[in-house]
């Protein structure tokens, strides 16, 4: 079992992103977002597998190069044209496109997010009328892009789904709010702010929604423990279960 179970960046763990010197010049780089220790993905309990010393990179599916297949190519083409009409070339707005398990994800730069989702909603060939909320994901090992916001969209007209992913660094956790385009995201953005600390600029009232207003910290972050939080009740403090009694 590894003593140091805290998440580290791939470089600190001594993993180098393999330089692709193959003849395929356009071969995408590996999407390493973190490092896993041991055979269990546990960081809290005992790894009884005997492989606790293993150090393996966490590799997410890498970018997909066109053609994407299915209806994705048509949609991407329409999207590029519509974005160009709005003065933003597709290449500058979209970092990369990932097609995985039959779903397409556009990684959008945060400064272009509002225009991008406005295009998704308004363009007749796209018509994604509904945004199914936003979800945060915290990748402590993904340096400079620690916080991800993931937006699923649904087009009832064309019966299609796309996903938009936006990243921001932990040091500057700001992403523009899309409530002006999709009012449905009001509560979803509040929830993501509550759990991850992503600040959605332009949201009408970005307050906590699930946790109490004066709660310190953002519980869904990876550095936030499960349990172990003392609970205050009527002025008295109840320590977390693991600290109530010593069994040494």
């Amino acid at each position, binding site marked *: 079992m590894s003593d140091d179970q805290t998440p580290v960046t791939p470089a600190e763990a001594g993993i180098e992103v393999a330089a692709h010197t193959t003849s395929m010049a356009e071969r995408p780089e590996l999407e390493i*977002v*973190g490092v*896993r220790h041991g*055979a*269990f*993905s*546990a960081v*809290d309990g005992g790894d*009884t*597998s005997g492989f606790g010393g293993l150090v*393996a990179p*966490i*590799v*997410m*599916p890498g970018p997909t190069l066109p053609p994407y297949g299915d209806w994705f190519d048509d949609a991407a083409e329409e999207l590029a044209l519509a974005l160009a009409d709005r003065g933003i070339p597709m290449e500058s707005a979209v970092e990369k496109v990932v097609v*995985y*398990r039959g*779903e397409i*994800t556009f990684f959008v730069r945060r400064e272009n997010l509002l225009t991008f989702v406005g295009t998704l909603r308004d363009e007749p060939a796209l018509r994604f*009328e*509904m*945004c*199914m*909320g936003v*979800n945060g*994901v*915290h990748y402590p090992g993904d340096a400079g892009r620690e916080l991800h916001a*993931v937006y*699923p969209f*649904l087009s*009832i007209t064309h*019966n299609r*789904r796309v*996903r938009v992913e936006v990243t921001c660094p932990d040091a500057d956790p700001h992403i523009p709010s899309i409530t002006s385009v*999709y*009012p*449905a*995201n*009001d*509560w*979803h953005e509040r*929830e993501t702010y509550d759990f991850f600390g992503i600040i959605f600029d332009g949201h009408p009232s970005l307050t*906590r*929604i*699930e*946790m*109490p207003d004066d709660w310190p910290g953002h*519980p*869904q972050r990876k550095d936030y423990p*499960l349990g172990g939080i003392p609970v205050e009740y*009527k*002025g008295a403090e109840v320590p977390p279960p693991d600290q109530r009694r010593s069994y040494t």
Partner: protein
Amino acid sequence: MSDMTEEALTAEDVAFEGADEFFDPYALSYETTEGTVYTVSGGDWDSIEAPDEGQKERIVVNMGPQHPSTHGVLRLILELEGETVTETRCGIGYLHTGIEKNMEFRTWTQGVTFATRMDYLTPFYNEAAYCLAVEKLLDVTDEIPERASVIRVLMMELNRISSHLVALATGGMELGALTAMTFGFRERELVLDIFEMVTGLRMNSAFIRPGGVAQDITDDQVQRIRETLPLLKKRMKDTADLLVDNAIWMGRTVGIGYLDLAGCMALGVTGPILRSTGLPHDLRKVQPYCGYENYEFDVATADTCDVYGRFLIRIQEMHESMKIVEQALDRLQPGPVMIEDKRVGWPARLSIGSDGQGNSPEHIKAIMTESMEALIHHFKLVTEGFSVPAGQVYAAVESPRGELGVHLVSDGGTRPYRAHFRDPSFNNLQSTAAMCDGSMVSDVVAAVASIDPVMGGVDR
């Protein structure tokens, strides 16, 4: 918070005259930047005199979180002008239990145990959505046995009936139709008996698992389900007859809680509320899963955009679900109920023992006496769990309340890296203000009942 209370407890802070004789620690007044704020409780209205002449009177009423007609611990903050609601806000979070965080610390299979507890009226939908997402990540969607999918559909549609029965029961109770409540819960009991017979538990059954279902359904059970259905059908009709043409019920619901198609689209509202605008959007039809394309049923719609329309849709959906249940029973063919892939399929085999449930003696014998490798494999799969390739997926099912979406992220390990549920109740509650602003207080109750939020799903 405690500081404020202690300060407020002194009599000097009580602003109105005659405070000494009327002193009530729960009915205090205190100064804020917006003027004096009075907290009124009980019958002390007479003792409050309009202190700021000329200033607009704002009355803010907290409805809930313990109010019986707010569907669980929902807190509605209503700003009133007489009996008219001028502004509605929802306060949620009273039932937040950190299910999504907990799932990150348990194996993929154990995640079902958490998912089933979210929206406690629709446990099978929570489980199915989660399992469909896990199977999509594993890329084994096509390998799920036919029988498992049929059983999933069977349980889900029975669950839709029980959930809609509760919606009618609680909705009726909140509007004063108490017989609807007693009828609704009585009929639901029939469905819960079926759940108990098949899964061993009335709620929170953790029955649908990644790769299939936890255990097979026996011919005897199928027979008993068939025997229950006629009674359930008859009684469903009784409940519907009680309300459909009921003048009082219609007076309370027709034209109330109006939300049109544009409003639904903007607010991301799905389910019966969206279908009450006339749009036949149902994921079972447009994006089928679990083999729904093989069943014949109609999508219930209404064009009234109001509480009454949503009520009629729920009535009709129960009958459509009944049709699907009967088709599912007919479609049940013998076969496995768990994926063949030994790397994923839960190794334990269950059989009916003297107590109605138990481990299969053949399986125990095989792993304990015949194959060391099988024992090791069983142990590894149960304790460590299976690994799921890194990546993310979104899977959605049509729950009785709308689109229940699951966003799952895997880092390649044996536990979810992130699991997020887009619960329809959570999203649909946002439409409360659009439905209620400008209406009477009593209509707020009807509108919230037509949203049918379940706080376990809202707060997770």
